[in-house]
């Protein structure tokens, strides 16, 4: 077996040193009923690299690769170009095969990278402090709600109707068990986010109001009035961002008064990967909230010779020290995805991020204009970044999407898939456009969409 260095002679010598005659002498504490008498049944025996590769490639070949067709899916996962050097760097064994940096003297590479990552995320979000990552945007969203309940000592969270429905589901699943109250809603099909109703739902019992920006329909609005309304009632504003590239073009949530900003970092460096692993981003605007944050934090200090050095800090918040009193149960986070994100962000820099955002927006505007010309199609949004909602004039979006896939176009995400059973949303289609989208792709979508609509009753 190519991964196992011990030889049979080694094994015999080692058993002799231990004073055991067979390997099973080392498993004597396993009760007899639970011992297997040979290799487990139902699994094949070991296989060569070539044979395994053949098996996996056959499975991969059954999937329609996004990069090979006109592709317009978003809704929390975006397809961006990842520079070649990102993958080279994350495959360096010193990063890939390291553990969480518990021994800082020999983990400065990971620690300095995390310190730089935290700084990038904090600045992108307009916040003071970001942590070293969580699992993904949806779990970061729940962690933000949980943190808000600790900070305010209240147990009610108000969710915007235009929060990603998976994120809302995660929050509701957790709140059911913690005993928190979640006030949620369905998105309103309006050209601009509906803020008056949301503000009206904030009361004196509210720990936080959770708003997505840009929202699930791709709309954007000034969050300052919500921040003001939340703060007036003693509540925190949690802002969720699922497309970090947008923040190269539009105001940072922290600038508009958000107290906790969380999001999905997958757009930069990580790739689509069928939904995971992704990268949870988490930041707070006010440094006084740092000690209530979940997850790892990397801080600057010095070593015994006075040299600058980095270390995981404030770990008295964490499970391995505080056990049942920890701010979160998280241990392993998303370190290598954080590395991919920070390398991509370093390659972009301020200039590149702004250019990337402008290019996304330019192409999205082109697409919106072109698709609005398809008979029976309307663009819902007044404002958007790189994703917008199409109303299909009473045609069911799920069927149209499947039809488009059969025509070799991955045309978007139907709201019917995201909000099953909600009739009012069945005719809406989310379309995302990035720098990877070509003008030919847009034309192809427009043509096929027109045909698909004509053929759908």
């Amino acid at each position, binding site marked *: 077996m190519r991964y196992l260095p011990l030889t049979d002679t080694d094994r015999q010598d080692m058993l002799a040193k231990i004073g055991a005659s067979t390997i099973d002498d080392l498993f004597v504490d396993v009760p007899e009923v639970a011992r297997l008498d040979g290799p487990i049944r139902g699994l094949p025996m070991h296989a060569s690299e070539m044979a395994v590769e053949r098996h996996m490639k056959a499975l991969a070949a059954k999937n329609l690769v996004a990069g090979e067709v006109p592709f317009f899916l978003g809704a929390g996962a975006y397809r961006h170009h990842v520079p070649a050097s990102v993958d080279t760097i994350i495959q360096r064994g010193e990063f890939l095969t390291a553990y969480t940096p518990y021994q800082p003297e020999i983990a400065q590479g990971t620690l300095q990278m995390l310190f730089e990552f935290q700084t990038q995320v904090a600045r992108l979000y307009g916040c003071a402090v970001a942590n070293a990552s969580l699992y*993904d945007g949806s779990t970061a969203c729940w962690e933000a709600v949980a943190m808000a309940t600790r900070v305010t000592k209240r147990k009610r969270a108000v969710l915007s109707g235009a929060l990603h429905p998976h994120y809302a589901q995660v929050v509701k699943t957790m709140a059911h*068990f913690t005993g928190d109250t979640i006030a949620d809603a369905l998105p309103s099909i309006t050209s601009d986010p509906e803020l008056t109703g949301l503000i009206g739902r904030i009361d004196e019992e509210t720990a936080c109001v959770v708003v997505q920006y840009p929202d699930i329909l791709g709309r954007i609005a000034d969050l300052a009035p919500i921040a003001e309304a939340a703060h007036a009632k003693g509540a925190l504003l949690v802002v969720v961002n699922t497309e970090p590239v947008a923040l190269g073009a539009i105001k940072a949530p922290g600038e508009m008064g958000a107290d906790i900003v969380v999001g999905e970092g997958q757009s930069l460096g990580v790739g689509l990967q069928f939904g995971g692993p992704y990268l949870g981003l988490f930041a707070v605007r006010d440094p006084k909230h740092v000690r209530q944050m979940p997850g790892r934090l990397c801080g600057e200090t010095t070593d015994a010779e006075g040299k600058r050095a980095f270390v995981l800090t404030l770990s008295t918040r964490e*499970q391995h020290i505080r056990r049942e009193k920890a701010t979160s149960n998280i241990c392993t986070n998303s370190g*290598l995805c954080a590395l991919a994100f920070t390398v991509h962000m370093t390659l972009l820099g*301020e200039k590149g991020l702004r250019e990337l955002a402008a290019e996304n927006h330019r192409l999205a505007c082109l697409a919106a204009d072109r698709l609005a010309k398809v008979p029976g199609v309307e663009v819902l949004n007044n404002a958007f970044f790189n994703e917008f909602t199409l109303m299909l004039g009473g045609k069911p979006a799920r069927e149209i999407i499947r039809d488009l896939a059969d025509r070799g176009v991955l045309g978007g995400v139907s709201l019917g*898939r995201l909000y099953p059973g909600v009739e009012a949303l069945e005719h809406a289609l989310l379309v995302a456009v990035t720098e990877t989208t070509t003008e030919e792709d847009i034309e192809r979508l427009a043509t096929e969409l027109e045909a698909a609509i004509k053929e759908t009753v």
Partner: protein
Amino acid sequence: MNAPNKSGWKPEMQVAESGFLGGPVTTTGNRGLMLEEPLLFEIGRADVTGVDLPEVDASAPTRLGGLERSDAIGLVGLTEPETVRHYTRLSRQNYGIDLGFFPLGSCTMKHNPRLNEKMARLPGFADIHPLAPQSSVQGALEVIHQLGHWLCTLTGMPAVAMSPKAGAHGELCGILAIRAAHEARGDAREVVLVPESAHGTNPATAAFAGYRVEDIPATPEGRVDVAALKARLGPDVAGVMITNPNTCGLFEKDFREIADAVHAAGGYVYCDGANFNAIVGKVRPGDLGVDAMHINLHKTFSTPHGGGGPGSGPVVLSEALAPFAPLPFIRQGESGEFYLVEEENREERGPSFGRMTAFHGQMGMFTRALTYILSHGADGLKQVAEDAVLNANYILRSMEDILDAPFAGSGPCMHEALFSDSNFAAGLSTLDVAKGLIDEGYHPMTVYFPLVVHGAMLVEPTETESKAAIDQFIAAFRGVAERALAGDEALKQAPYYSPRRRLDEAAAARKPKLAYEG
């Protein structure tokens, strides 16, 4: 005293009064190949980029609702060569499995096969969207289904939840399933019992899920005190969370008896599967009465730890808990097609406790783990467990004459060997031994865990190491241990030869500096 060095070279440099090697001070602070690296924000510039994109056309119309970001974001960029050099230099300040022996107990730092990496990067897996029409991603759904099947086969359990993102998330999944099962029969229970030797995530998870946590003591042999546990069972106890093999490196031989008692009292049994590597292919937890167990794919099934994740923590479930598994999950239809059961499948979802994460779990880890399992097969996985256990016992018996091994008398250990600091000279600690091992070129073992042993040193060699590598480690470990026994004051300043000396961790926490300022 030093580890064998085949080249015959031995360092003869003197330790200067400053505590470090003598030799000239360099202008750069570099020492040959040991290169210092500034912070990104000290070398990057706002107007530099390593990606060629069209310049921003300030006159182009926008539809951003008047929310243009006009102030500087505060980011800096580097060109590609500068970027590659920055991170390559940083990488060289890290220790990884690729560099050497990494015996971090309970973390299972085994070799990460490169075939796994190659397979995960196939565009058919890496470049597909989680919400793509299911007919266009049948191969991806089949990967999840196949991996789930092997995990059920290896554990002897009927069902598996694939979406949890890491070990602690998997624990949460299991505990939520237990709560949902109790709620479904109108049985409100408040307490989860956790042995005091448990990982910190266990009590944190139970508390996060709304339970009160109570400790169960350990016996002098390093196992769960069965009598104390049984005495505490009652109508308020929802379940127990037990790690098996446990964090003292021992198999909980009374596990079946514990499980039967918990079930008789109306509770459920959660098994922390962090240490599954010791028994994979040898023992099926399903035969021991487990109701839920998470499997760290980044431990037993070799997906890379990546400097702190991403992990992946599928949870196998018993018949009793399976109906409560989180959404989404995968089913196979009558015509052989795979499909996701999501919120909308009202009949099929049954009493599922809901969604734990957006999308379907850590696909990138599933492809790696499946590649690993198929590479090893039934015979190879059994050999993995046997070699991991053999290596650990070999270390235990090679060290017990000089170090206190509190449970060595309890019989063989499983995949990790546990030592204490009880016979060190006054003033010398486990931390000093760990730092001394860094100078010898090793990543230290897990220290000060489990908490039930004073100054614990938990050594997990895994099956990855050759006998020669283990003999070399034992020589180094004995050398450092002898210095601790003899009261060698110089050990208290270790490490001397790493990129940084001991850090002032207290200062970092007192006045936290968590982002670059300037």
